[in-house]
């Protein structure tokens, strides 16, 4: 180990696993950098933090962060995290995964965790495709964009993720791009400090598959596109933030509200029914 100054985010990383598998120009690494800084800023001790990922490029995050982490099966990160969060209510549980994992095969878990207001932060790296398996169409691939399974352009409407999250009951919803590193870090900090189900959509480049197939240049070109075509509109109605293919995009903090969490509701109801004989569950020690 050299004495050269270390990057301040390195303590969150399992540097022995570097180099990582992400392609040059991929946005996931940048988001992890923001995440590391957000953990510092939110002052969350590493031993109170769990990172849960599904399968895919973004799913690799769980393997690279130097905290208790869980690399689950495809689509099930939120279900695993639900068990973890409820068993250990004092811990901060973060689900870090991709659009395909969270909203295709795992979509059901997302809507129910948000509905129940389980105490967790879900960070979705949305690169509009299944990167790990070769760039197939996902539920977030914009209309008309090409993918390996839609070579003449996608003809299915895509999800408006902030709108979905709000409708299902998330208490904090924000969207930023990989260009907006400071805002993203702040939003992550806020999400991590929020009790209940918080959701962050992070728009990220996938130069290797999504962009190459759609002739959108390299990773830098996409970051430039994010810079040029995004408008910050905090408090925007989520019904207006849907994304089209290379459309202008609204970014910002859309939802910030309070609702009783799953545990709050559970404790309140049991107390109401059982009275003093009810002992609230405080988690596995």
């Amino acid at each position, binding site marked *: 180990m050299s004495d050269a100054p270390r990057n301040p985010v390195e303590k969150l990383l399992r540097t022995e696993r570097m180099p990582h598998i992400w392609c040059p120009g991929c946005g996931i690494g940048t988001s992890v950098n923001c995440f590391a800084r957000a953990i510092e800023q939110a002052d969350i001790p590493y031993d109170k933090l769990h990172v849960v990922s599904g399968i895919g490029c973004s799913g690799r995050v769980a393997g690279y962060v130097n905290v208790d982490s869980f*690399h689950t099966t495809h689509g099930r990160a939120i279900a695993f995290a639900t068990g973890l969060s409820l068993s250990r209510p004092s811990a901060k549980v973060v689900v870090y995964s991709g659009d395909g994992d969270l909203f295709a*095969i795992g979509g059901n878990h997302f809507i129910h965790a948000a509905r129940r207001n389980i105490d967790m932060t879900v960070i979705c790296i949305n690169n509009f495709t*299944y990167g*790990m*398996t*070769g760039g197939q169409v996902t*539920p977030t691939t914009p209309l008309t964009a090409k993918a390996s399974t839609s*070579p003449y352009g996608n003809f*299915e409407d895509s999800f408006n993720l902030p709108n979905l999250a709000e409708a299902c009951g998330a208490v904090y919803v924000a969207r930023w791009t990989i260009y907006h590193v400071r805002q993203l870090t702040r939003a992550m900090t806020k999400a991590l400090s929020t009790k209940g189900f918080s959701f962050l959509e992070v728009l990220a480049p996938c130069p290797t598959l999504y962009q190459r197939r759609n002739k959108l240049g390299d990773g830098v070109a996409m970051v430039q596109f994010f810079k040029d075509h995004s408008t910050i509109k905090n408090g925007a109605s989520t019904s207006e933030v849907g994304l089209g293919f290379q459309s202008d995009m609204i970014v910002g903090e859309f939802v910030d509200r309070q609702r009783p969490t799953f545990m709050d509701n559970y404790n309140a109801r049991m107390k109401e029914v059982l009275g003093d004989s009810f002992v609230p569950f405080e988690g596995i020690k």
Partner: protein
Amino acid sequence: MAQRKGMEVSIAIAEAASACDVDCIAAYPITPQTHVVEHLAEIVAEGELDAEFIPVESEHAALSACIGCAAAGARTFTATSSQGLALMHEVLFIASALRMPMVMVVANRALSGPINIWNDHSDVMTERDVGWLQVFAENGQEAVDLVILAHKISEDHRVLLPIMVHFDGFIVSHMIEPLSLPDRDEVKKFLPNFVPAMRLDIDNPISMGPVGMPTVYTEAKMVAEAAVRGSYGPIVETFKGFGDMFGRHYRPVETYRSEDAEIMMVTMGSISETAMTWVDAQRERGEKVGLVRFRLWRPLPIEDFKNAVRGAKALTVIDRHFSPGGPGGPVSAEIKQVLYGTADAPQIVEFVAGLGGRDINMEDFDQMYGKTKAVLAGAPVPPFELIQVRGGHHGEI
């Protein structure tokens, strides 16, 4: 006769499905089957195949959609691997119980955990009892041919069952090999238009998937047993028809240099080709060894297998999956069951090898052969052994 062209096996499988003029494809990306459905998506998008390609949101949805397609009377195709097949688990039973003809290719891959994308047979062996017909290809040509055969077998009104075509992930799926790809006209002669025996039809309403009370459930299972077992005859007949037309002959069980063999290797899938090379080398040295391999796994071709191993003194059975805490691998367990009580049954020496992408090479065959020979020389029959483990089976890892 079509020319032999060098191509990736997954691409060739997609071309074969296209040549079969399938109507519906529903699939979800999973390594290493992905190239199959990606290429089919291209073929459909290019207008070369008039079919619905449904990029569903999970494998559970994929197979469910396939059942919907088949229930509507569509010729249906899908592909998956490993965790994808496992996620289909509950739906697999439904497809066979509803007697839905369809073809699924499975690029065999290990199940998690640890997460592993490489080849073994744990995905297929854990779906042994789902009531599907199951065949194993040892190379790309066979995989292509079995896709065509599978449609014909599956749609045969004496069969009407879904069928899985297994081929080893990466080792076969990503291999580029010279292949003879039957063209569409040839395939059409062999495989006429799909005539559903029963389908959802608003003019003649039926109800699919009802409850089976205890008063009928056992009978329904008896029907399933009769259907899968009874498919043997039509399968052999279809293999023969294919051989007559295309010149490539397939049997439920294959043997290689088994005449006068004292010890026979028992394999499935692509290691059979390695095994043949090894058998050749042993025969050069005067060793009396041969090979027997299962192509058909369900229905289990019991009589063919018994005939194939008749006269052998010992079998070296190589499983690519095992049941922790159980007696050993599934293939050897079934072989023992089949041969139990048979006069002059060969000794069975069981091995588990090639898990999660570990290659099985000549030295591994030497080792298994040596241990089998020791049994013939009087050593006690050992319990199943997981070879290739650092430190040895039960040793320090």
